[in-house]
């Protein structure tokens, strides 16, 4: 994206209002994290169930399907808040390599959901009947854990990266 366009995006009324308010920005950030608390813990329980580590007394279908609507609600909250936070400071975030990494991981999470949807997440009756959890379901769960922990890490590291200061002009350039 050209820098002028990124700056123009950030100058939009709503983005400016969020960025400049002493209260709105931290409230959205808190909701972003509250969504993670709701949604993140439920992803973990789903993945650990598929891996055969947690809630093993319960059928896979009960855990996966029982948590699904709540994970969707959490995801909606996290993504909406994340979008607003990113938009409000997009000119600052856009050059940040960890921000870009986070967007890349979000793309991978979407691909992951599409790839494993039919065979794992919407196939829980089959998984209930299977005496052992199939490798494909375990692979889906393991990849999900790696991707989500990567997303959280990339998100946190955004705050620790600073753009290199522009090099001071040399005499040759000044003259």
């Amino acid at each position, binding site marked *: 994206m050209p820098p002028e366009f990124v700056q123009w995006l950030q100058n939009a009324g709503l983005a400016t209002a969020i960025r400049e308010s002493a209260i709105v920005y931290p409230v959205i950030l808190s909701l972003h994290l509250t969504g993670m*608390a709701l949604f993140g813990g439920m992803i973990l329980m789903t993945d650990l169930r598929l891996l055969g580590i947690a809630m093993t007394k319960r059928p896979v279908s009960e855990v996966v399907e029982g948590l699904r609507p709540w994970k969707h609600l959490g995801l909606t909250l996290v993504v909406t808040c994340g979008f607003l936070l990113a938009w409000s400071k997009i000119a600052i975030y856009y050059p940040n390599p960890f921000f870009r990494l986070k967007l890349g991981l979000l793309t991978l999470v979407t691909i992951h959901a599409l790839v494993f949807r039919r065979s794992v997440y919407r196939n829980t009756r089959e998984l209930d009947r299977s005496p052992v959890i199939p490798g494909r379901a375990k692979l889906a769960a393991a990849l999900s854990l790696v991707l989500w922990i990567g997303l959280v890490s990339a998100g946190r590291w955004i705050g620790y990266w600073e753009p290199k200061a522009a090099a001071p002009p040399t005499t040759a350039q000044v003259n």
Partner: protein
Amino acid sequence: MAFFLAYDPSTNPLNSNEWAFPVCEVMHIIGFATLIGTITMVDLRLLGVGMKKESAADLVRDTAPWTLFGLALVLISGPLIFSSDPNLYLANISFRFKITCLVLAIIYNYTIHRKVALSQTSGGLAAVVAVISLALWASVVFGGIFIAFV
């Protein structure tokens, strides 16, 4: 308090190692997501809106080791983050609010919340217990974020 006043945070590896602090923060986020996510599952059941195939009592028993795992992660990473600058945190009103809510939330979780979930109580009382639980944990998260903004 005197201990903290005499302590020089610059001697803390968390303040000299580039990776240490964000690693603690990631551990903190994963910890509270596990802790609060598993408690929320019980709350949704107490409210009668989620995980309805399982009883609240079974849900508490099934998630308890993971709730404890999440609690352990936050209780390790939290004090480490705190140690990076104790005086700053102690003077911060949002930090004080957060810690108050956290202590109440932990006590509440292992007393009233657990007892009600295990006793198969349902209806109004169960719903009130769940709402208080959700409000306490959300307050902890909000208090934590606002440390950086007050």
